[in-house]
């Protein structure tokens, strides 16, 4: 048992890092869906925007790193606002049109990024100060990933607290639950929607800027992270922060530990995980921790 733990420790820590990375994407996707029934298929592009910002601006110094985060987030907020403005006029037309629109936007964004950054996956360096590796229980492990786990973990806790414990979070939760009632109480729900869209987009871009050294930007990466975060919110439960976090951690492990243990079944693990969770808890893992 201890041996097993020792052999797979690196995979498991990797899984936590991967899971937290997915959380930064999935939470925005999940909330936007929960609030306005919009499936934002361009969400993966926002990760790519942040990650390319990190690739273009980080030069190993702290200043470059901070600049990358700042630029990535501003671009993300801008992109999210644009998407919110584009989907708003379609609100009466069913989700297929909204999905088609965001799919179109993601194709355009992907092509534009290929034109600017080329059609290769570009490895991105973390700040020099974090580039080394540390030793955990006798294993060498990149320092940057450990720092990423700490930062993204704090971010997840911050989002969770803001969503569950603040009055602004209560407003968002109320809008997810019953938009018409919130509007009847005199709140401009469009503003709430816009805010959540922009917030989710900024978080995805931040995930990209921080995650670029772990999951390097390139063509196809947007699609890849989009599908993973969709699976995360299907597993976790739609429109819930807790669900997104739980689902992200599970999928992180499936994609690292699972693939390390069962390499031959790797392509089917993701579907298997979805199957098991949906058969066991059709409402997603969030229903395990929600009192109702």
């Amino acid at each position: 048992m201890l041996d097993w733990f020792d052999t797979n420790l690196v995979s498991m820590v990797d899984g936590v890092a991967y899971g937290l990375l997915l959380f930064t994407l999935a939470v925005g996707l999940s909330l936007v869906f929960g609030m306005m029934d919009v499936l934002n298929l361009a969400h993966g592009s926002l990760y790519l925007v942040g990650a390319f910002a990190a690739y273009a601006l980080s030069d190993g110094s702290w200043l470059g790193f901070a600049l990358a985060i700042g630029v990535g987030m501003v671009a993300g907020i801008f992109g999210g606002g644009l998407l919110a403005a584009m989907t708003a006029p379609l609100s009466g037309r069913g989700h297929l049109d909204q999905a088609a629109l965001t799919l179109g936007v993601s194709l355009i964004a992907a092509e534009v990024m290929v034109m600017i950054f080329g059609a290769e996956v570009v490895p991105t360096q973390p700040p020099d100060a974090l580039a080394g590796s540390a030793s955990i229980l006798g294993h060498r492990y990149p320092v940057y990933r450990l720092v990423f786990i700490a930062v993204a973990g704090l971010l997840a806790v911050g989002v969770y607290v803001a969503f569950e414990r603040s009055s602004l979070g209560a407003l968002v939760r109320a809008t997810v639950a019953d938009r018409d009632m919130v509007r009847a109480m005199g709140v401009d729900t469009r503003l709430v929607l816009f805010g959540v869209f922009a917030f989710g987009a900024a978080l995805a871009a931040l995930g990209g800027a921080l995650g670029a050294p772990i999951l390097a930007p390139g063509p196809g990466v947007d699609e890849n992270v989009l599908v993973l975060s969709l699976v995360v919110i299907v597993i976790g439960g739609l429109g819930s922060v807790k669900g997104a976090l739980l689902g992200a951690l599970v999928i992180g492990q499936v994609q690292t530990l699972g693939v390390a243990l069962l390499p031959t079944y790797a392509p089917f693990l993701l579907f298997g995980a979805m199957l098991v969770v949906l058969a066991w808890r059709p409402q997603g893992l969030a229903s395990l921790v929600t009192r109702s």
Partner: protein
Amino acid sequence: MRGRIGYIVALLALLSVPWVMGPYAVATVSKILVFAVLAMSVNLLTGVSGLPTLGQSAYFGVGAYAGALTAIHLTDLGPAQVVIAALAGAVAAALTGPVAVRARGVPFLMITLAIGEIAYSAAGRLDSVTHGTDGLSGIPPVVAAPGLAPTVNEGLVFYYVLAVFLVLFGAVALLLRSPFGLTLRGLRDNEARLKAVGYHTTAYALVGYVIAGAIAGAAGSLWASAQRFVAPGDLGFEVAALALLAVIVGGVGSMWGACLGAAVVIVARDYIGANLSGHGPLLLGVLFVAAVYLLPRGISGGLRQWRRPARKQEVAA
């Protein structure tokens, strides 16, 4: 009556294709017909049953590999390949469908998208069956009927694809008029009421899903016969997106619209996109955005959709 004339004109135009077009254009029209079959499969779920899907590329791919493997190892007889590929698509849909049909609307879209992506990565990694990212080559030319010579000529391949397309188009038209087809429409329009009358709606959705999987599988076999090469890229996200775009451009719910949409999409990507020095996806994205804003009811919605004031009066009256 007007509809019937339209069908006859379309059929005559299709029959004349190999006589008036060059080999590359004929191959493109073959590709359009294959995509039209896939678009019908997507439309059966998205338009008719109200289950938006981005995962039919998975069953298309299963059919393409099944058809190709049948051609290489078993028989070069085309109809046999189509039947085996359709069965393979149906089995794959029956195995994966139960997860998807529990959901409706956007969650259904998400789950099918995940199924498509997983099938794509599986095709790339199951080297022993699919030859991985190298793709499956060496598919022998298809024999359209017992006793005929293998079809190598582009024009004859086109006629083979056209024949299978027409059979499938007719089968789908019959299906839509059957009580089962009407039940699928009911699933889209008012599932709660259907349930209240005593229909087991999830079972109907699953059967519809399996049929759509079979149609996509048949399209995959045609693809393998026409291209004589199958690679994981053939069941990638782009294929699913193209098929959905064809349905949206053509008008959700209309089968001839979906076929026309397939033509628009393929011509845009392979003809106009090729002239844009490989920026086909960019054009595709623009098409998506334009279709959503400008053609809310697709081509089959006709010109009426732009006369909005008239429609409002209708509602008022």
